[in-house]
């Protein structure tokens, strides 16, 4: 039925926005620092549980606790950077990418199992008073929570864009990406830029996680799935373009939904991974990339 297909497409767009948000965080961190943080999904998971915790313990609405979740993620990001990744700054790119990937892998195991001990392996979800409310447009159901998440994701990315374009810190980040040696000659502290980029990445992951916890569900083992999603979308969208990555997320979301509609549930993940491999091998700069992948 056409309505059913349309419903799928809309669902795909709504979840795709979160894919995009998750991917932009990873893309930003990787683009600046060349740290391949494969624990990005676990950071997303942490954001989700932070939001969940605030809701169940303090009874606070997840959209209202976004600022505190952000603060939490900034602290976590700074801590992890200082503890684990700050030594990696001076390495050559190949070694840096590989070693940070390995470290992040170890980190993902730790975070995953810590979360398992704290929250058990059950799926969790935040159900607010308005969780069941949905708009209806031409027979397609638009859950209010997911619509709000789409808006939040979009606003976050706009804010990020403005930050990078208009603020000194943002411009310093852009300059470092382009030419780090020239950036130091202008007085930019590369270590600080790396720290800021890592924190931004963690922050965006956390916000995405918070939105996932209210619109979908979270579980300690969700990290790998979301890391892969972020990687797929990062590669699909291409480095250097926030909007490109966001669109990439939506493309993945819709592709998954449509595949699920025609070929069944399991293949929705498979199709994303296939796209990933094809892009990696045949068009590594992605659809909208402005820099080398």
């Amino acid at each position, binding site marked *: 039925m056409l309505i059913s297909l349309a419903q799928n497409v809309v669902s795909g767009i709504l979840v795709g926005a979160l894919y995009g948000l998750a991917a932009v965080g990873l893309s930003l961190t990787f683009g600046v620092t060349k740290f391949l943080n494969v624990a990005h999904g676990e950071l997303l998971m942490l954001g989700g549980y932070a939001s969940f915790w605030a809701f169940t313990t303090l009874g606070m609405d997840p959209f209202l606790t976004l600022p505190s979740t952000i603060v939490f993620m900034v602290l976590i990001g700074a801590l992890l950077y200082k503890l684990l990744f700050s030594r990696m700054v001076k390495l050559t790119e190949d070694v840096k990418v590989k070693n940070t990937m390995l470290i992040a892998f170890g980190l993902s195991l730790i975070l995953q199992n810590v979360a398992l001990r704290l929250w058990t392996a059950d799926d969790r979800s935040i159900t607010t008073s308005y969780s069941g409310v949905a708009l209806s447009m031409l027979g397609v159901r638009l859950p209010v929570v997911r619509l709000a998440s789409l808006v939040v994701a979009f606003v976050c990315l706009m804010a990020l864009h403005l930050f990078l374009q208009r603020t*000194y810190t943002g*411009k*310093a980040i*852009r*300059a470092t990406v*382009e*030419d780090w*040696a*020239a950036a*130091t*000659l*202008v*007085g*930019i*502290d*590369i270590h600080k830029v790396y720290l800021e980029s890592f924190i931004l990445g963690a922050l965006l992951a956390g916000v995405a996680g918070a939105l996932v916890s209210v619109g979908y569900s979270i579980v300690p083992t969700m990290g790998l799935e979301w890391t892969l999603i972020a990687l797929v979308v990062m590669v699909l969208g291409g480095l250097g373009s926030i909007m490109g990555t966001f669109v990439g997320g939506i493309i993945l979301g819709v592709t998954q939904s449509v595949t699920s509609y025609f070929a069944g549930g399991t293949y929705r993940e498979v199709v994303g991974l296939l796209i990933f491999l094809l892009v990696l091998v045949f068009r590594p700069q992605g659809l909208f990339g402005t820099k080398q992948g």
Partner: protein
Amino acid sequence: MLEIEGVDAFYGDLQALWGVSLRIEEGELVALIGPNGAGKTTTLQVISGLLPPASGRIRFRGHDVTRERPDRIVAMGISQVPEGGRVFTGMTVLENLELGAFLPEARRDKAESLKRVFRIFPRLEERKAQRAGTLSGGERQMLAIGRALMSKPKLLLLDEPSFGLAPLLVEQIFAMITEINAQGVTILLVEQNVRAALELTQRAYVLENGRIVGQGSGNELLSFESVRRAYLG
């Protein structure tokens, strides 16, 4: 103002500088000349903190800056215009200049510095909203120098500002360099173009194969083989 004593520098296992020593007094315009591959850029890298020396000392206005971080060295008043300028091509001329005033002290006087830079390089003002990637070679060099000036340096290091530029442009740029020096900025000019360098300044060091083989005025320097070759060849 700047004292370099006995600096050795390595790229991995490859020694690039052997016991390099030189000094620059405040207000001077000193040149560091030598053939390709002599180690001139390496010397600037060491001064700017991008390459830590294996031995030796660097003192700037009394402070030991041998192992200082590059961004701190800029804060202390040494700015380098690297070879080729290396402007941020993805950003506009204005953004490049603003980034030059990144450090808090420089940022305070940003408006004033901008006026100063535009006075020296009026062409940059014309193109201030243009992306740096669209500028010509000469304009990029001007932008790079302007960007370095935005940090209000006491000592300006210039790495081959004439490289790849047409002779007329070289003359223009060098005229601007003279003016900058006249305004009170000490300058260390690294150049392969010996004739142009010796026209600008009275004092130069000669660097050959990573060693300072002498210093002096234009005539004195003609006694050096490499200098003679550069003039005649």
